[in-house]
């Protein structure tokens, strides 16, 4: 089944009105109102002086041409009249009329639409995130994806990209929701990730192929992320950040929201820590996320790395010291003659996947 003409025209209309929508920016609730309007009302609301011409163009827009453009971009449109449309999105009052899908639609269907599909989790956070937070996002996403829980995120720099990468490392169960056309790699720095997501996972957007990202498209995209996920996890967010928009949307929908505790007194974590203060679920690791979704203990992560029994005793001692907070080479040595041995041990643990080296030279446990 292909997308119906009306929904397809709505999708392309959003692209045509994208510039006009910029005037709505800054009035967040108003944006949601506007997105919920019918085509005519939407043109009237944001069209300004060009209203009549836009309406005239819209009336005469050619659906065949649109279908041809979609086919040329190797994309599929899934509209709200389609059985494949993710039912969770229907809870949104301003649900997108159509989702343009790059990558495999079957995967999207099996993760979000199938009655057999399990719960989905959104992992969002700051673009300018600390390295620790990115490690957390990546690890949680990897474990969830391995456990068969698709990870939804927005492919922004920082936390979003880390979540997608983690999910790709796991079971590759991940959906990227973009603020541009699904074929447009924004931010450009993540174009490799974008390509990999299309190839191995799914990239969706309510904007047609070729649409460029604008300021209003990001809060609009956030509502889709929140709509697709049963649980939204904010990993690290400052106050008044886009991640909090996603969290608010999720709360409005009555979905679960969780946050990863961050460093206190740091401005970069005020938003996510604020969510915790307000009573959101505390997510320390992937097990907490699974408990939140399926009930405590109902499902467990592979516990792949928790098992240290097979390790050489000396390595296990080092790993335990790292877990106890001795995260640097210096903290593990008492004498300069030990440096070589400690480095060899840490390198070995890193090779085996128990620890990861951060940019500033610390070793953190990977699981």
């Amino acid at each position, binding site marked *: 089944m292909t997308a119906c003409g009306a929904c397809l025209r709505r999708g392309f209309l959003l692209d045509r009105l994208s510039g006009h929508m910029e005037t709505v920016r800054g009035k967040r609730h108003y944006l949601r109102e506007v997105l919920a309007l019918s085509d005519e009302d939407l043109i009237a609301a944001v069209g300004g002086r060009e209203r009549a011409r836009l309406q005239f163009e819209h009336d005469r827009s050619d659906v065949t041409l649109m279908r041809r453009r979609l086919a040329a971009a190797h994309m599929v449109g899934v509209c709200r009249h389609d059985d494949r449309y993710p039912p969770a999105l229907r809870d949104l009052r301003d649900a997108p009329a159509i989702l343009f899908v790059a990558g495999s639609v079957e995967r999207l269907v099996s993760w979000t639409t199938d009655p057999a599909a399990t719960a989905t989790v959104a992992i969002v956070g700051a673009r300018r995130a600390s*390295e620790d937070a*990115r490690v957390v996002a*990546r690890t949680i996403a990897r474990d969830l994806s391995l456990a068969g829980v698709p990870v939804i995120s927005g492919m922004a720099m920082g936390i979003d*990209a880390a979540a997608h990468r983690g999910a790709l490392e796991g079971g590759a169960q991940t959906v990227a929701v973009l603020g541009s056309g699904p074929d447009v790699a924004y931010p450009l*720095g993540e174009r490799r990730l974008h390509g990999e997501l299309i190839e191995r996972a799914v990239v969706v957007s309510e904007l047609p192929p070729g649409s460029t990202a604008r300021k209003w498209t990001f809060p609009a995209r956030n509502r889709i992320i929140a709509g697709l996920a049963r649980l939204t996890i904010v990993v690290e967010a400052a106050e008044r950040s886009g991640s909090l928009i996603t969290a608010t949307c999720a709360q409005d929908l009555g979905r679960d929201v969780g946050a990863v505790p961050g460093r206190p007194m740091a401005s970069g974590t005020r938003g996510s820590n604020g969510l915790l203060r307000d009573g959101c679920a505390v997510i320390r690791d992937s097990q907490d996320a699974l408990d939140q979704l399926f009930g405590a203990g109902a499902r467990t992560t592979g516990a792949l790395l928790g098992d240290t029994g097979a390790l050489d005793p000396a390595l296990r001692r080092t790993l335990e010291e790292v877990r106890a907070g001795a995260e640097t080479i210096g*903290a593990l040595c*008492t004498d300069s003659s030990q440096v*070589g041995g400690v480095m060899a041990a840490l390198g070995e643990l890193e090779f085996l996947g128990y620890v*990861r080296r951060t940019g500033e*030279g610390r070793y953190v446990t990977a699981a």
Partner: protein
Amino acid sequence: MRPGLPAFTIVGLGDAAVREARERVRAAILNAGLEFPLRRVTANLAPADLRKIGPGFDLALACAVLAASGQVPTRSLGARALYAELSLSGELRPCRGVLAVAEATRRAGLDEIVVARAAGREAALVPDLGVAAVAGLAEVVELLRGETVAPELASLPPGPSEPPAGPDLGEVRGQPHAAEGLMIAAAGGHNLLMCGPPGTGKTMLARRLPGILPELTPAEALDVTRIQSIAGLHSGQELTRRRPFRAPHHTISASGLVGGGAPPRPGEVTLAHHGVLFLDELSEFARPALEALRQPLEDGSVTIVRAQRPAVFPARCMLVAATNPCPCGRGEPDCRCSPPDRLRHARKLTGPLLDRMDLVCSVAHPRDDERDLCAPSSASARELVLQARERQLHRSRTGAGACNAQLTGAELALHAPLSSAPMRRLEQTCIRERISMRGRERVRRVARTIADMEGVADITAAHVTRALCFRQDVLRVGEDA
């Protein structure tokens, strides 16, 4: 010299210093109690198409005038080189590049060089060459007339001794990663990049490198002394034994770094020959300057072609660089830089020079529990370094480069064979961390040095693992945790 109005002309493409020699020569001859001929004097500096620079021709010009006017025997000038500047009062002053001139004198088959007293020891570094180190023009004349003999060199006052080799490595608290990196770099001649926020001791660590490097070999010492003499950095006394340590400011231009100008002068990379070139705040250097460094680092020499003739300067040095992890310098977790800023910063680092960096260490603020950890003392570190160099030297007799950093790909395969376990470790890590072929070679090179420091012939998986601790992905900013 011919009759006519008294005049003194110097021809042969001299620079301003050569032209002004007229006044110095005239005054010096008169003040030495000799006679300046009242005739038309023309001095020709041959070959006429080669530009002559500097005041070193003064003494030779003066003696030529004296010989032409019959005040000293012409024959006495035949087997002597004369190289000194004259003061107006007739004293001899030392010039730059005495060692190079003395060596050229020897090559030209002359028996003796006459230099200023302060330059005597430097000229005497050349074997089988008579050195006459004299104080004034009057003495030179006596010497040329055969009235006296050159004073014994031993009577010359000793020059200032070399400054101490910098602070001791043992004073460093914490920073085991960087201290280890420093020792490995010294042992294998590897290039090293230190990355960390300001105030963590990157510069402090780099300054301790000369103290753990082995002394110059006699041949290397002669090279270094010659370069320093030409650049006017040498005290004009003994052979330099210590490896040079050059730390140019980041505002340096490309030609300041690799050499340039007309006539070409050596740049910092040449002044650091056989020693260390330290670039602090690497990302602040102008891109053209860093780009210009690539070829010299690869070839070990710089060829500078200007309008006249190409000049080739040696430039085999260790590159040690330090940089902030991001533009604001605070680093994780306090960094306030925007992601694009960080990317730009990382790109500048990864661009031209990173390929030449065998070792990358991160330098962080030491934690409380690290502050009691001392680095090994410079003396014990140097022992390790010497032991590793000894093994490399031994290998080099079978045709390899002087140190591990200079091994070619084929030599590396021959001298750093990996058995199956270390090979598997290297391959698997490189695939997972997306390390390039060149990166693999770097790891192998460093593993070879680590094994050399332990005095072991075969590289084990542990050596590879330790070498992998210095790989470059700490700089991968845009690509996530």
